């Protein structure tokens, strides 16, 4: 069956004027979506996915951003030249959008009801009572409990998942022709993520709208889209049906992207990585945008731009690999053996390892204070009696949804927070209840790596000073020369160069900043490191680099990790043991194999079944 597409984007170009020059954020992008179908745009951050979405709905931040060319046809009519009044009639009515952050996309001072009826009254010209009836109907459709009551609620009373349902209700209330979902589930827990995606899919079927799904999560794409466009450097580099793409990725970027994803089958091997990071739009290379990072780069790739063309039936890719003229060209650098072929870090069998950290009945309660005199009226039991052991040279993953107390538990273990109760024994010595002076020797042995590579480095200190801080505090006897030597050695180890010591954190990419964070910790010779979502804020190709780095330092130094995460694919890949946390308690513990093959606790079962998976790889 052939249908006329609802939306057709032709040679769209969206450029940005920046102090560094012209940024070609979206450059010559074309695609179309038919009624009732879903097209997913995937790629790492900075590839132009969101700018493409904003260009379609005509909300490019002006005056820096502008559409430099191309057409956006909605039901056959180009909407770019329309006036602002016309465009407003389209937005929220014909094209609507769901954003990533449900916490900030609803206005906190208006009720849910008034925010839904606003769109209905505006675009459908309905009376207040009709709009109200319609809004309640929509709230029911997105399966919010008690829609009549919900209508009068304010956003702060709702959880993230519920707010995202409200956003969906608003977006679909006018039965749009196109729904743009920009990372709709990225900010949500994995169990809620699946529900939201299913809801979108169901409602899409009901009102047969076209969906443009924007995500960086390949597994989400696999389950929720019919067609996929892989974006890199403001261009679509590969476009195909979802099954075709995952079975037979043609573009080297797509291939690498799929291989970077950690998972059970990659355990014990190094992850495949893409060297470097996505360049900023002002520094995209001349020829193929992926040149410079590509493992199959040939002579000419850096100067001649490959066009997106159909290579097989319905499978298009923009790469010279499939170009007859390039067939016999030599590779510009030797084809590296895939990194995943590197030998597994061989360790002592898990059972024979000795214990480094033993946690018994650890509790951390936040006092809840009330009244003028701030009397403690109760306690919030963030961590409510957890026990676990971590063995030397091994990794324990602590998983659970946000707010379950995993970060608090990690901080209480290394005595960054003073536990309310329970004991932590590190290498045979009890560290709970130690005085600040007594704990100091253990500060270098137990360390923490944080999630956010932006807020974990003081923006006003140079990298050298940041890394040096721990040494100055914990090894005051070390002189400047010895310190500098140690610093350069560690920087080299984490893949940075010593000249970077005199630069400031903002000059580095997210991945490099995370390396700085790791260097800062390694420099004091720790034996146990808490990795608090250490790779969650990174793009998948960079995440692979960091996971490899963590794995290799574990092998080289016999370090033990507590790996706090919500992403189970990372757990399968890196952990030896898993502890599942729910509501401040550990509900299940065991080796990775045990937990993943035969989960016992109902929460673990739910968590595992909610994880989207790619089955064809």
């Amino acid at each position, binding site marked *: 069956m052939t249908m006329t597409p609802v939306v057709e984007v032709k040679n769209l170009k969206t450029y940005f004027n920046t102090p560094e020059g012209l940024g070609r954020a979206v450059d010559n992008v074309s695609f179309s979506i038919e009624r009732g179908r879903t097209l997913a745009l995937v790629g790492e951050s900075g590839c132009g996915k969101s700018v493409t979405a904003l260009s379609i709905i005509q909300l490019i931040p002006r005056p820096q951003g502008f559409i430099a060319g191309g057409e956006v046809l909605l039901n056959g009519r180009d909407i770019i030249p329309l006036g602002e009044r016309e465009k407003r009639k389209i937005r929220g009515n014909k094209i609507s959008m769901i954003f990533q952050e449900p916490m900030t996309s609803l206005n906190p001072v208006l009720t849910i009801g008034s925010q839904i009826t606003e769109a209905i009254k505006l675009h459908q010209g309905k009376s207040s009572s009709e709009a109200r009836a319609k809004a309640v109907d929509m709230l029911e459709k997105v399966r919010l409990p008690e829609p009549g009551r919900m209508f009068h609620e304010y956003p702060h009373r709702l959880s993230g998942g519920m707010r995202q349902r409200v956003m969906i209700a608003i977006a679909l209330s006018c039965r749009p022709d196109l729904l743009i979902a920009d990372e709709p589930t990225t900010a949500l827990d994995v169990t809620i993520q699946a529900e939201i995606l299913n809801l979108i899919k169901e409602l899409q079927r009901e009102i047969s709208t076209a969906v443009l799904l924007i995500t960086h999560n390949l597994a989400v794409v696999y389950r929720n889209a019919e067609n996929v466009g892989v974006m890199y450097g403001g261009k679509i580099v590969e476009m195909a049906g979802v099954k075709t793409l995952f079975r037979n990725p043609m573009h080297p970027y797509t291939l690498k992207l799929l291989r970077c994803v950690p998972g059970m089958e990659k355990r014990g091997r190094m992850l495949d990585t893409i060297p470097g990071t996505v360049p900023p739009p002002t520094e995209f290379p001349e020829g193929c945008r992926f040149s410079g990072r590509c493992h199959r780069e040939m002579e000419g790739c850096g100067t001649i731009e490959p066009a997106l063309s159909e290579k097989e039936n319905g499978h298009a890719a923009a790469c010279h690999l499939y170009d007859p003229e390039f067939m016999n060209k030599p590779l510009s650098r030797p084809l590296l053996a895939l990194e995943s072929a590197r030998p597994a870090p061989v360790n002592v069998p898990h059972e024979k390892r000795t214990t480094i950290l033993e946690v018994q009945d650890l509790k951390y309660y936040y006092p809840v204070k009330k009244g003028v005199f701030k009397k403690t009226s109760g306690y919030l039991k963030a961590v409510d009696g957890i026990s676990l052991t971590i063995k030397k040279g091994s990794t324990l993953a602590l998983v659970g949804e946000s707010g379950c107390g995993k970060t608090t538990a990690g901080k209480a273990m290394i005595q960054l927070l003073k536990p309310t109760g329970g004991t932590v024994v590190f290498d045979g010595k009890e560290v709970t209840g130690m005085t*600040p002076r007594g704990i100091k020797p253990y500060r*270098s042995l137990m360390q923490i790596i944080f999630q956010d590579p932006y807020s974990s480095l003081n923006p*006003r200190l140079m990298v050298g000073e940041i890394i040096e801080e721990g040494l100055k505090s914990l090894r005051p006897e070390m002189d400047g020369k010895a310190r500098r030597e140690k610093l350069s050695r560690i920087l080299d180890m984490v893949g940075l160069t010593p000249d970077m010591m005199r630069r400031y954190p903002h000059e580095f990419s997210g991945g490099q900043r995370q390396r700085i964070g790791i260097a800062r910790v390694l420099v004091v010779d720790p034996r146990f490191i808490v990795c608090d979502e250490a790779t969650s804020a990174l793009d998948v190709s960079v995440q692979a680099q960091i996971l490899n780095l963590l794995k290799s330092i574990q092998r080289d130094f016999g370090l033990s990790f507590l790996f706090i995460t919500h992403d189970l694919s990372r757990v399968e890949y890196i952990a030896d043991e898993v502890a599942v946390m729910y509501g401040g308690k550990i509900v299940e513990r065991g080796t990775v194999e045990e937990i993943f093959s035969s989960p016992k606790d109902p929460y673990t079962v739910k968590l595992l079944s909610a994880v989207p998976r790619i089955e064809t790889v």
Partner: protein
Amino acid sequence: MPVILATDLIIYAVFLATVFLAFSAGRGDGYLKQVWRHIRKDRLAVASMLVLLAYGGVALMDSIRWRDPVVAEDGKMARTAEGEKIFSAEPLSLLDRALSGVKEKTEKTFSAPLARRLFVKETMEPQDGKAVGAGLQVIRDYPPLKYPGTHLLGTDKVGGDVLFASLKGIRTGVVIGTGTTVIIIPFAILFGVMAGYFGGVTDDVIQYVYTTLSSIPGVLLIVAFMLIFGGGGYEGGLVTERNLLWGFFVPGDRLFWLCVIMGITSWTDLCRIIRGETLKLRELEYVQAAKAFGVSRPRIIARHIVPNVMHLVLITLVLQFSGLVLAEAVLSYIGIGVSPQMGSWGNMINTARLELSREPAVWWNLASAFAFMFALVLPANIFGDAVRDALDPRLRMGRR
């Protein structure tokens, strides 16, 4: 015999700090040098800095003063019965001495800028002595100035030079602006950071203090304070070698107490802002990381907290600076500002109130005070913004 007021010490301190900063920025390749390199690229900021330096120079000149011995009629030093030297009651500053030509050339009353005649008509005898009809030989006309061409901005009611008065106002403005700031900064940063970082009882006490302070109407507090302390000064009595308090040092004048009380009433805003920011910073991961390294609390505060609230300090202070200079005018208007003899823009504006209601209006007094005030506040804002940007490594590198 030199005379040093407490407010002079503020000016000297600011001067020394400027010299020190300039010296260390010019030397080596340190942090300050980088900051200066960034500021230097901004032409507007450099121009503003030059204006500020000029103001500072005038204020400094006006802060170096000494009393001349009184010379008796016979050309000898005047002495008391005990043989002590007598000094003039009014110490003259370097500025007074440099501009004595303008200062002493007073007219009879108002004259417009660059006028050749007075602003008001007088009854006078015709100058050439010719009789105009019968009876009294008088006419009414604008008399010519005694010193035409001297008074670029005209003269005030008692014939004093307006430009000179405005220049004298610079010291008052600079003292109020910087003196109050010098008092605000340590209070606000110390208490703000402590309240935010330590929390608990410390936070409660500090919050209690600044909530109480800011709930008392500021003007009332200032009035009460000035009535108690503002009486000091160096007026009164025959000035001889012996009866000068502490030799040459004059501990308090009204301007000094004005700075103190304005500092006390206005540190609370900044303190509140810093407390809020510290609460946020305290939970940031780089602070947590420092804690995990066992870094001591004073060091965390000095390295991680204070540098990251400095941008707020600068913004707030620059905004307050303008407010303070204006507040001086308001307080002089209600009669509790600096002493009326002291040159200040506030006093000028205060007197201009009546002058403006004349017909035709005497506008140059107000315009001149306003222009001088504007020329201090605007560059202070521009330069403050430039310094803030230069202190932020993100912006500093971004523009390079």
